[in-house]
């Protein structure tokens, strides 16, 4: 979503993005003229008249589970966004019985919060695992 009209979105998709992605962008490119929605989400930059680089993870109940907002010159890490979605999906699937420690990726160790884990995380999880 940006302040550009859907007509500009079409031209951008046709003339540039389709050259990067086969068939063009598959998902909706939304138009937020005047930044009305951006203001609602706190990402509209009044001075510049554009949206900052905000990214919101919204779960199936419509609840915001996480967000990240960057100023325009630095791009996002798409893989990190996907990793976070996968982590929230696991937590939701286990109804909170499992939690994902720092550096978690699918397939890696999860933690099962409970009385026996208090003070014992160091036995189950090593600092190096945050950097793997």
């Amino acid at each position, binding site marked *: *979503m*940006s*302040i*550009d009209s*859907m*007509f*500009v*979105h*079409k*031209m*951008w*998709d046709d003339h*540039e993005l389709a050259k990067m992605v086969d*068939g*063009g*962008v*598959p*998902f*909706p*490119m*939304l*138009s*937020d*003229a*005047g930044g*009305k*929605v*951006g*203001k*609602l*989400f*706190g*990402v*509209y*930059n009044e001075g510049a008249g*554009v*949206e*900052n*680089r*905000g*990214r*919101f*993870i*919204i*779960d*199936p*109940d*419509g*609840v*915001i*589970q*996480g*967000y990240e907002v960057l100023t*325009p*010159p*630095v*791009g996002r890490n798409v893989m990190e*966004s996907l990793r976070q*979605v996968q982590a929230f*999906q696991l937590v939701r699937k286990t109804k909170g019985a499992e939690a994902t420690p720092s550096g978690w990726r699918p397939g890696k160790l999860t933690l099962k919060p409970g009385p026996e884990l208090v003070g014992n995380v160091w036995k189950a999880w090593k600092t190096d695992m945050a950097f793997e």
Partner: protein
Amino acid sequence: MAEEQPVGCARPTGGPVGEAVPETAANEPSAPIKEEMQMIHVGEKAPDFVAPGYQQGKFINVKLSDYLGKWVLLCFYPGDFTFV
């Protein structure tokens, strides 16, 4: 979900995703929307909105609450034809 429709403008619907819109908001669609920065909190429902857009050759209207039941990544960016 996102059907092809005549062109409109993006607007907040006046309530959180999946919840009833307060009556005043529902009955007065032309009432000025309060334009102030709001605080977004994790763990709380996203504010609902409708917005026009473009997808795969069609102009569409998207309502955030139509995506209830799915995971959504909502991304804002400064502008088309920019560099990052």
